[in-house]
């Protein structure tokens, strides 16, 4: 992904992040009520803190125009089709895009799977259990990989 520190206005990132946050507020419901999402909220907090730490410790923070536009497209498609997973994907791409190294971006974007309700559904289908407790461990593993990248 092309990094263009000076060509993309930061307010564009800010507005896209605000839109992603508003459209993903619905995540609070499964985190609070669904027994297979009990660790979702905790994983999200860990993920957010991990992204912020890596982005801050590897400054300068790049402006990834392509990733931001892709996130905005996912948000719009998710809203038009009422498909939550696309809105989650938008947030999962947008926040890690602040990390400087592409491999760190990939690791933290992958870690975002841990806070999505899709995690529980996929593991429930595959193994008959949502593997809820693995969520925070997965974030920590991805964070370690992102730091080493």
């Amino acid at each position, binding site marked *: 992904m092309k990094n263009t520190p000076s060509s*993309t206005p930061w307010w564009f990132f800010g507005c896209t992040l605000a839109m992603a946050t508003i459209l993903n507020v619905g995540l609070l419901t499964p985190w609070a009520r*669904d*027994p297979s999402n009990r660790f979702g909220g905790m994983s999200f907090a860990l993920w957010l803190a991990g992204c912020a730490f890596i982005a801050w410790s590897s400054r300068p923070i790049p402006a990834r125009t392509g990733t931001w536009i892709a996130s905005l497209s996912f948000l*719009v498609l998710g809203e*038009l089709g*009422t498909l939550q997973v696309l809105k989650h994907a938008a947030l999962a791409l947008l926040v890690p895009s602040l990390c400087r190294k592409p491999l760190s971006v990939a690791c933290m974007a992958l870690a975002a799977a841990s806070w999505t309700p899709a995690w529980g*559904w996929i593991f429930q289908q595959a193994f008959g259990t949502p593997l809820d407790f693995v969520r925070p461990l997965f974030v920590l593993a991805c964070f370690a990989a992102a730091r080493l990248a």
Partner: protein
Amino acid sequence: MNSRNLPFALLLVAAIALSMIWPRLPMSGDPDPLARIPREGYDLKSKDVDLSALELKWLGGASGLKRIFSHSNRLWLLAVTDGTKNRQAVHDPTYCFLGEGWKITEKSQIPLAGGSATLITMSRNGESSQALYWFYDGDTPFASVPEFWIKSTVRRISRGLSGPEPLLFILRPVGTPLENWTSAASEAATLLLPVPVKK
């Protein structure tokens, strides 16, 4: 605004406008597909059951019905959800059963009227129960949840031009579990498919 900012501003305005206007455009399709589910027929009699306050809360604006009917000398409970007004109300029924404390002991697919349905056997505190669920959009019944997601998403993006909203059917026997559950449930389920709209 300088020329550097203009394309991003236009992109954002377009995205926000599209997100706000498109979902409010009218959607074509049957306004009340639940009304086409047969109430009576050969060896079939049914009675509506009122939805509880909790069930209405879960539906969150979506339409739903619960009906007890008799077929083959047994009673069955049918629940149907139409997510046209709230797609989130329709999800993998396994979630609901797990939330009610059931443990899924067996899950398989069975043929149903040219398509397929998912058959679940579950247990809770020594008690055993069964459920059959499928989606139906007027073509053939299907059991796949991702297929439901795709169809309902494309339907919303195309404002109904891609086809009708798939309904979620959940069928459970009332009373003791059936021995020959598969064929009995399949036969009962086939009788419950909505009458097609005449074109």
